[in-house]
C-alpha cells in the first residue's frame, strides 16, 4: 500500500509528462521540426540561473491559483472562477494600494487583505447561488468570470485610471508607492552564493506562497475543518449525517477558495508591476486548474506542477530563435493535463483493486480458511 501511494503521487505524473512530451515531439515532427533539438535547447536555456529565477517567479501565481482550485476540489466543488476573481481583486487592490503610504508591513498586509476580500466576495456569489438556488458552480463561476472581465474593464476606465499630463489616458492604475512593494530576494540569493545575472528579481512573495502552502496542508489534512471538508468531498450524505452542515461547508469553501484566488495576482502586482495595466497577466486562473489536477491537490505536488508549467513557459522563449512556434508549450500543457487525469484514474483504480485484494487475502489468511462470497 505504501507502493500504492508512490504509484499515484510520483509515477502517474511522470508517465503523463512522458506521454505529453512524446505527443509534442510527434507534433513537432509533423511540422518538420526536430523535437530533440528543440527540447535540448529548451533545457539549456531553462536551466540558467536567470531562467530559474524567472521560472520561480512564474510559478508563484500558478501555485496560489492551484491552491485556490484545490481547496474546492477537495470538497468536490469546481471553482473555475479563480480567473475572474484574481483579476478583479488585483485591480481593486492596485487602486487601493496607491491611495496612501504607511509602514511597509502594514501597507502590504492591508493590500493583501483587500485582495483576499474581493476574491472571497466574488467567488462567494457563486457559493450563494449554489446554496440558495442550486445553480451548479461550474456554470456560475464561468459566467461570473465574464462578468468580472466587464466589470473590471468598466471600473478601470471610469474610476481607476489617472489622467496623464499629456491630457490622454494612461494605460495603468496609479503606481503603488514604495511602502507597498514586496522586496526581491536577490540579496538573500547572493548571500547563499547564487549569483543572479541582474535581469530578474526573485519575487519576495515566495515567502508568502510557502506560508500559504503550509497553511493549506495543515488546514486540509490536519484540522477538524479539513476533515469535514474532505468528508464532504468523498461522501456528502455521510458527511451530512456526521454533523457537517452542507450549505455552510459550501459557502466556507468558496470563500476560502476565493480569498486564495484574490492573492493570485499579488506576486506580480506587489513584486513587479506595482500597478494594474490594462493587460494584466490573464489565464492564471485556468492554468491553475491544470496545476491543481497535475499536483493531485497536494501542497507539494502542486509546487512541482507549478514549477513545471513555469519552466515550460520560460524555456519556450528560446524557441523563437530556432523558428519553432513557442505555442508548442500551450499544447504541451493541455496534453499533460489531459493525460494526467486519465493516468491518475487508471492507476488509482489499479491501486484500489490491489489494496482490496490484499486486505481480503490478509483477512482470509487470518481466519484460517477461505470464506464464501
Amino acid at each position, binding site marked *: 500500500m505504501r507502493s500504492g501511494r508512490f504509484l499515484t503521487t510520483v509515477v502517474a505524473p511522470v508517465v503523463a509528462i512522458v506521454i505529453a512530451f512524446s505527443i509534442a515531439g510527434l507534433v513537432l515532427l509533423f511540422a518538420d521540426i526536430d523535437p530533440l533539438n528543440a527540447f535540448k535547447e529548451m533545457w539549456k536555456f531553462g536551466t540558467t540561473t536567470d531562467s530559474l529565477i524567472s521560472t520561480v517567479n512564474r510559478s508563484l501565481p500558478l501555485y496560489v491559483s492551484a491552491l485556490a482550485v484545490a481547496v474546492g476540489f477537495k470538497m468536490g466543488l469546481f471553482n473555475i472562477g479563480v480567473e475572474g476573481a484574481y483579476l478583479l481583486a488585483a485591480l481593486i487592490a492596485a487602486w487601493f494600494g496607491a491611495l496612501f503610504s504607511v509602514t511597509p508591513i502594514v501597507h502590504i498586509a492591508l493590500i493583501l487583505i483587500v485582495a483576499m476580500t474581493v476574491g472571497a466576495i466574488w467567488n462567494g456569489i457563486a457559493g450563494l447561488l449554489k446554496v440558495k438556488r*442550486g445553480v451548479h458552480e461550474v*456554470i456560475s463561476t464561468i*459566467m461570473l*468570470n465574464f462578468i468580472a472581465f466587464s466589470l473590471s474593464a468598466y471600473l478601470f476606465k471610469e474610476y481607476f485610471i489617472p489622467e496623464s499630463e499629456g491630457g490622454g489616458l494612461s494605460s495603468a492604475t496609479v503606481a503603488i508607492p514604495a511602502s507597498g512593494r514586496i522586496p526581491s530576494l536577490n540579496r538573500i540569493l547572493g548571500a547563499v552564493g547564487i549569483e543572479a545575472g541582474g535581469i530578474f528579481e526573485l519575487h519576495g512573495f515566495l515567502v508568502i506562497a510557502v506560508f500559504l502552502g503550509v497553511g493549506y496542508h495543515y488546514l486540509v489534512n490536519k484540522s477538524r475543518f479539513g476533515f469535514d471538508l474532505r468528508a464532504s468531498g468523498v461522501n456528502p450524505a455521510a458527511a451530512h449525517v456526521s454533523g457537517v452542515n452542507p450549505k455552510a461547508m459550501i459557502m466556507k469553501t468558496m470563500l476560502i477558495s476565493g480569498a486564495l484566488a484574490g492573492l493570485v495576482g499579488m506576486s506580480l502586482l506587489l513584486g513587479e508591476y506595482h500597478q494594474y495595466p490594462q493587460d494584466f497577466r490573464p489565464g492564471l486562473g485556468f492554468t491553475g486548474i491544470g496545476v491543481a489536477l497535475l499536483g493531485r491537490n497536494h501542497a507539494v505536488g502542486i509546487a512541482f506542477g507549478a514549477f513545471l508549467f513555469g519552466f515550460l513557459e520560460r524555456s519556450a522563449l528560446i524557441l523563437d530563435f530556432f523558428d519553432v*512556434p513557442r505555442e508548442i508549450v*500551450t499544447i504541451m500543457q493541455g496534453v499533460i493535463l489531459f493525460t494526467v*487525469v*486519465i493516468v491518475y484514474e487508471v492507476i488509482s483504480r489499479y491501486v484500489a483493486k490491489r489494496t482490496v485484494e490484499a486486505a481480503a487475502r490478509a483477512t482470509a489468511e487470518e481466519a484460517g480458511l477461505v470464506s464464501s462470497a
Partner: protein
Amino acid sequence: MTTVVERPPETRKPPRLNRTTKFILVALGAVLIMTVAELITGSADLTTRGTASAALRLSIPILLAGLGGLYSERAGIVNIGLEGMMIAGTWFAAWGSWTYGPWRGVLIGIAGGAIFGLLHAVATVTFNVDHIVSGVAINILAAGSMRFLSSLVYTAETGGSVIQSPAVDGIENIDIPFFAGGDLFGWSTPDIFGWLENQSWFFVSDFAGILRGFTGGVNWLTLLGLAVVPVTAWLLWRTAWGLRLRSCGEDPWAAESLGVPVLRMKYSAVVISGALSGLAGAFLVLVQSGIYREGMTQGKGFIGLGALIFGNWIPTGVLSGSLVFGFGDALTFRGAVVFRAFVLALAIGLLLLAIYRGAQNRTRVAIVGGSIGAAFLVFYILVDQVPGQLLNATPYLITLFVLAAASQNLRMPAADGARYMKGEPR
C-alpha cells in the same frame, strides 16, 4: 384477483398544464409587454425585425451547443467541454473554408469538434475520469491546440497571426418564400410579414416584425441548426436508437441487463455532441464573423449548457432557452437606449408576475419577483445610459439570472454524471 395497491404518498403526479400552450402564452405576453415598454420609452428597437433577426442569429451557436450537451447528458455523460469543442469547430471551419471553401469548411469544423468529443469520450467512458474534470481538461487542451495550430498555419499569411486567421468565405443568407418575400424557383413571392410590419397596427405589426426578422435574411446554417431540433426530438423519443440512448442516461445498469451496448452508445452520444459543438463553431466563423479569432466563442458553450438546463433537457426547451439568451446577446449590440427599454419591459413583466403569484397565494415567489421587478424599475428611472463595458456582461447576467430562477423544478437524466463500468454493480 389483483387488488390495486395504493400509491405511496411521495409519488409525483403528471403535470397538468400543456407545455405548448404555456409556451405560446408566455411568448405572446412577452411581446405585448415589450411593445408597451417601447411606447413608453420611445425606443422602437425591441421588437423590430433587426433585433429579432440578430437574436435568432446569435441564438444558433448556443442552440447547437445546447443540443450537443443534450445528446451527451441524455446518455449520462456531463459535457463541460462544449466550449473547447466549439473552439475547435471555429478553427477548423475557418481553416477548411480558407483552404477548400465554405461548405467543406462546415464539414471540417464539425469533424474538428467531433475529434475533441472523441477525446472526452475516451476519458470518461473508457477510463471513467470524472466528467467535469475531463471537460475542463478538454477546454484547456482545445484552446492550447488551436493556438499552436494557428502559429503553424496562419502566422505566415497576410491578415493571420497566432490569434486570428485571414478572412474566409462564409455561407449566404436567404429570404424565406411568402413569409419574407424570398424567391421560389426563380419566382418572386409576396412579403407578407413585411407588409404587416409596415401597417403600424399596435402589437400585430410588432409581432409581424419579429416574425419577419426570423424569416428574412436567414442563413442556411440557421435553418440547418433549427432543423436539428425536431430531428433530435424524433430521434430520441420515437426511435429504438433514441430509447436506448436515453436509457443509458437514466439507468445504464438496466440497459446493460437488457443487452444494450451502453459503452458504444455513450461514445456515439459524446462524439455527436462534439460534432454539434463543432457546427456551432463553424456557424460563428462562417455566418457571423468571416474570420477565426482566438476567444471568439466567448463562453457560448457554457451558455449553451445553461440553455440545456433551462430547457430541462428537452429539445424544444433548449430552443426556448437559446432564443432568450440570443435575445440578450442581441441587446448588447443595439445600444443603451434599447437596453433601457428592455429593463423597463422586465420590470413590468416581473411586477405583473408578482401580482399574479400573489393572487395565487404564493407569497414568497410574489415578494421575491416583486422586489426584483421594483429594483429594475428603479434602475430604469435612475440610469440613463448603461456604459458599454457593463452592457457586454448582459448575456452572462441573463444566464445566471435564468438559472437561479429556474433551478428548482428541473429533472435531469437520472444517471447523468454517474460512473458506470461495464459489468460492475451500481
